[in-house]
């Protein structure tokens, strides 16, 4: 909140003025969401922060309602979810919203992260903002993983078994960690109980980290597609109504696609095996996680060694934490990085290939393909990025945002 925007606002409503004098929430909202100077040149990629926020609120709202009818007990969990679907009035709606909401939350966050990478939003002075984002991403993955266990279908059970077992790869303390996660000697009732407790807790921690994320955002303001800092009022517009309206429109479009899945293909993104009640005695042919974990699952399986696989999987997210320091280019936006831009697209393709490998059994040519894609993933972050920043010759940056916008309009 470095930039001051003139005198504090005057409220005509007496009640609001009274409250604001003692607890300046209205001044805060006014300053951070109304007059807040925002670059005038956002494209639609800048909608996804608002979209992710909407999804977070939606997930908490539907989740709390589901929790009022859910039974975290291995004997009842599956049937209680079916009861919500069948017998609780509008229960099917709440469940379909929550189930598909997780997928769409990930879609929003993945696009949001891509936006940050493409336009260099992680570079100084936004490193902490970015790191908080990666923390949110990790928390989101943990939340989604535990949520998927709750309906206690076959994939719930076997997914939980496979993923918790990974921790046994940790030297010395591995098995103790696994037993501690399970609350016993197998994935059983105590596991389900604690996963439910944490699935309920983590989203509120995400809310707290999102708050920090937004505080950090508002110190230096948003980045923008040109990646250059605003130099004056001609480069910015007040957040409201310009971006409230644009975000509102983007949110609507996103919700329409989301509603398409919720109402017309609610099970499309799920796995049929999760409609079979969990059975510790029958292993499914292929244990696959939800689609949003597939690239990481592929990295895990690409390494023939268990500990190596686990390290690579966590390393794949770990590199995101240090991304601001791996990228040595001083130019933020890919718009002005003629070479790096193509490597960004290549990275997206690489992650998609990893996802496809993760969806398929690790046989035949999927094995070398996954290994190659894993290698490339780390090559991109650990080797390409540091070197490219040194050798790439960026295009000339425009003198200001306003200048670029007006030129684009003219040409």
């Amino acid at each position, binding site marked *: 909140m470095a930039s001051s925007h003139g005198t504090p606002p005057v409220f005509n409503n007496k009640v609001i003025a009274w409250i604001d004098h003692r607890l300046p929430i209205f001044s805060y909202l006014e300053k951070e969401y109304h007059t807040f100077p925002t670059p005038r040149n956002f*494209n639609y990629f800048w909608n996804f922060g608002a979209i992710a926020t909407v999804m977070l609120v939606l997930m908490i709202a539907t989740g709390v309602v589901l929790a009022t009818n859910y039974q975290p007990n291995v004997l009842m969990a599956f049937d209680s979810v079916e009861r919500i679907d069948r017998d609780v009035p509008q229960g099917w709606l709440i469940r379909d919203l929550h189930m598909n909401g997780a997928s769409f939350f990930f879609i929003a966050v993945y696009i949001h992260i891509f936006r940050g990478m493409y336009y260099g939003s992680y570079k100084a002075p936004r490193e902490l903002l970015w790191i908080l984002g990666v923390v949110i991403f990790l928390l989101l993955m943990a939340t989604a993983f535990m949520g998927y266990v709750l309906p206690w279908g076959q994939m719930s059970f076997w997914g939980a078994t496979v993923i918790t077992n990974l921790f046994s790869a940790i030297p010395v303390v591995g098995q103790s960690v696994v037993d501690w996660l399970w609350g016993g000697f197998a994935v059983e009732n105590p596991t389900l109980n604690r996963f439910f407790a944490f699935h309920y807790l983590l989203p509120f921690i995400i809310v707290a980290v999102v708050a920090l994320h937004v505080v950090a955002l508002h110190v230096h303001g948003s980045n923008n597609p040109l990646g250059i800092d605003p130099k004056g009022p001609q480069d910015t517009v007040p957040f409201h109504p310009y971006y409230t309206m644009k975000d509102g429109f983007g949110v609507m479009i996103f919700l329409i696609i989301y509603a398409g899945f919720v*109402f017309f293909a609610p099970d499309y993104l799920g796995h*049929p095996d999760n409609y079979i009640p969990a059975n510790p005695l029958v292993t499914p042919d292929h244990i696959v996680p939800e689609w949003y974990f597939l690239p990481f699952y592929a990295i895990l399986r690409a390494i023939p060694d268990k500990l190596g696989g686990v390290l690579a999987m966590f390393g794949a997210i770990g590199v995101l934490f240090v991304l601001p320091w791996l990228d040595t280019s001083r130019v933020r936006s890919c718009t002005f990085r003629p070479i790096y831009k193509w490597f960004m697209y290549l990275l997206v393709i690489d992650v998609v290939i990893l996802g496809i490998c993760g969806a398929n059994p690790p046989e035949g040519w999927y094995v070398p393909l996954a290994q190659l894609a894993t290698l490339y993933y780390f090559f991109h972050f650990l080797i390409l990025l540091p070197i490219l920043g040194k050798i790439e010759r960026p295009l000339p940056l425009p003198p200001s945002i306003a200048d670029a916008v007006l030129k684009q309009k003219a040409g």
Partner: protein
Amino acid sequence: MRKSMKRLLVSGALALASLSAGAAAIAAGGEIKLPSKQWHFQGPFGTYDRSAAQRGYQVYQEVCAACHSMSLMYYRNLMALGLTEGQVKSLIKDIQVPDLNDDGQPIERPAKLSDRFKSPFPNALAAAAANNGKAPPDLSVIAKARAGGPDYLYGLLIGYVPYDKLTPQQIKEFDVSKDDNFNKYFPGHKIGMAPPLADDKVTYADGTKATLDQEASDVTQFLAWAAEPHMEARKRTGVRVILFLLALAGLMYAVKRSVWADKH
């Protein structure tokens, strides 16, 4: 702005392509091609064919219920198939369900609307023991619990091949013996369920000719309904929600344009 729209479209298309590529890759796993039938409940406006589902219940009750439970279903649910309370009561009048009497002694009494569908076996062990070690699965959500859904169920029911019609190669490859049931669509082909349906296995109350194909299709439609009784409400709500969101999006777009008019 035009350029960024284009870029957004490209990345959207990329994301969609990756999703569908993933799905196709998963689908490619089950190489066997299922029969694809035009179901009445398919598509964004599809509804359940009530008379087919009623006939399907008859098939379930007279054939499948000897081995398969449907423990998530209550008899009262049948009223959603267009039957009156009286009709459902007369459908279930001969079904005896276990209960306790006032002295705590086990008894059998006639089924009530509020009862769950009667299970043929007291527990999974008994079910497996009576079926050569393979417990018949509960059918309540079976239509959602198999890849291919209704197409798979229908295929499974019509897909049996008698031993003498198998090629020597099939017999060798899948190690089939005379006592095995070979099914074209069951993963691994050897299934613990003998062909449950045949022509005239039931006599339909509404006079429909009971061919194997008719029975299979009817019971499949019944099972599809049982797996998702609220499907029609879901689609109806969906149409309204999407129309509403479209209107709101249009409104937001108009407001956004007028707000931005002086900037771009």
